[in-house]
């Protein structure tokens, strides 16, 4: 009887001895899988140094700058309005002076009566002369910029 129990116990122990390796292998193999694929390690998911096993990309070092924003014309109209008003009154004075000067000259030199003079033509010429002056050019540029609010380049070809 004793021999029978002894043989059984010895058999079980020997079997267990062989199975230790198999079991150890299963545990070691699982650990090895986690070491090779750290993102799959559910016991310590913070081990991974790449996001190979994760679809969610880690934050890319990218610009934190805002997108390019347009600037609407309203802001410029307000800012330039004062200067435009000033230049326009200057233009008015310039044109008036030019017209009256021309009139006096025509009347005195050519003896043409005031009623006979082509005033719109003289005014138009005076306006053209104004546009040739630096302040005239400035006004034109400002008016163009504020009335259109355009940032487009002038067409060249």
């Amino acid at each position, binding site marked *: 009887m004793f021999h029978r129990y002894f043989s059984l116990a010895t058999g*079980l*122990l020997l*079997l*267990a*001895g062989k*199975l*230790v390796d198999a*079991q*150890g*292998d*299963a*545990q070691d*193999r*699982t650990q*090895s899988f*986690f*070491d090779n*694929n750290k993102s*799959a*390690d*559910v*016991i*310590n*998911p913070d*081990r991974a*140094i*790449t996001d*190979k*096993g*994760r*679809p*969610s*990309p880690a934050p*890319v*070092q*990218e*610009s*934190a*700058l*805002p997108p*390019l*924003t*347009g*600037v*609407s014309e*309203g*802001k410029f109209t307000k*800012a330039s309005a004062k200067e435009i008003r000033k230049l326009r009154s200057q233009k008015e004075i310039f044109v008036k002076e030019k017209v009256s000067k021309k009139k006096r000259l025509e009347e005195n030199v050519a003896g043409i009566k005031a009623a006979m003079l082509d005033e719109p033509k003289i005014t138009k010429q005076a306006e053209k002369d104004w546009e040739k002056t630096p302040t005239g050019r400035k006004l034109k*540029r400002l008016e163009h910029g*504020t009335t*259109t*609010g*355009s*940032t*487009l*380049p*002038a*067409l*060249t*070809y």
Partner: protein
Amino acid sequence: MDKASEHSFLKENDLKVVAAWKSIDAFGLGFLALTVSAGLAFASQVSAKDQRGEYEKLMRAGDDLLHQGERERLAGESARHPGNFDDALPHYDKAIELDEEALGLFKSAENYAPQDHKKHAVFFEGVALIEKGQAIVSYNMATKNLKRGAPRVFCTALYEIKRSIALGMTPKANSSFFFELGLALMGAGEYEQGIQVLDQFLASHQGNPTQQRQAEALRDSAQKAINAAKQITPSPACGKALVPIKAPTKEDKPAPSAKQTESQIVYSITTGVGYDGNVTKLGRGLRLPEGLTGKGAAFNETILSLEGDWFLHHTKGDDDLIDKLAVSYAIIHDAYDEHSDSNNLGQTGLINYCHVITPRLCMGFLIGDTWLRDDTKNLSNTLAPQANLSYRESDQLTTKISYTLAWAKYFTPSTPLTTLDGFTNRVALEQSFIAIQAYRTWSPGLTVTGQYGQEWTTTDGIVGDRQRENPLVKAEWVIFGARDSCSFVRSVTFASSYEYRHDEYCNATFPNLSATNRYKRRDDTHLADFAVSIKMWYDERMKNRLEAILGYKSITDNSNVPAKAFDDPRFVASLKFNF
């Protein structure tokens, strides 16, 4: 040339060709050849003239469309500023359409342009693209449903303007040259260069006042943003959506968060090849088992990952806090050449909820499960719930404490004494330190993380009971980070980690359970891991589409059980595709 004129042009030429063929008779071949030569010479002269005329016509038509497009965009802006967002959107759409038409005309003009005039056509292709980009940016400020394409459009604009420079374009040829180049650089995200170019534009006193004021405004906002970007700002504790939903805005500055629940689904597939120096973890000095040609083998590794994320906004005081719920699944297959017994198929599921309590404090709960099998049978299943708490002590330093309870089940044959099924308790303390965070292309970031973990494993048998001490240090250095959206290479990162594991087994089970002089197993394992990751291919949604990863791992296990002491170097080169 529009379609109608193109059609009539072709028709006219067809008739000429038919007439020419009809005029052929038996004795007139020589004369015909002479006539054709003369005709071609004449046609080429006429054609050159026509081409010049067509070029100028197309340029003027394109310019006209650009102005129409700009008026539409400004009409959109006029509607957006008082908050009439729905009214603004059709104007932006129309502006985009007109800008695209203008681009088409300038492209046609380029074909007709004399060689020394091509630069103008190409320059205006860039201008049309900038206008389109600006319209998309403005559109996106008036809606939550973002229209994509602005970064790509600005990059193409930059490319076209650079091409016009190569063709001879200068600020003398067009007084707005620097202004447009500056806009293209800004739109593409290259702010520092953009500021320099706009400074040049302002210094030249060229352009109209609107351009000058816009240049000033852009330069100032970009400078402020650069200053802000230079500050160390840790990313939100629980993360944020790849493309956060923004609320429509009346202002001319970046739109604020819509503060509504956001969701995203992301997928990735990774595949790579490598070489493992000791596939079976064969003990040092042990003989190779029969049937194997060597310890090492080439292998293929394939990973498919799916993840669904939900971002939940809540407020505490003035702070907008974002919780994150992530559900992910990954399947991993490792296939070894001539070591097919070592092939692995792992499947991992993870549910992770991160809750922000205050901007500095957050708690998380995650539950993960990994089921592992080889090609023929199940090997193990590990289920691990974890609770953690993170505290951001400063903008640079974050501390995290976690507790994990893992339940492992092994499917290989066992006896009551050898069964390894059981539980592992793990507590870990982790600190992350942002050593470098800078607004620059080279070396913009360095993060160092240290972790100490302690584990206790108790099993149903006696073989697997153990305690583990597990310190880990890892560093992530961003070597290169692209600041514009045009660069194909987005970032280059070098990451490394060193981990030490001291496993102290509780019971004397070696060399085997029947031996008289049994002893306890004790392992000291050193794990070094190095990886270079190159993120590529900018995408507005995914940030990067493609990633190349080169990795090297080295495991040295100094066990007191000779069969368990091994060395295992492993190299792998992978490509990851995000979609």
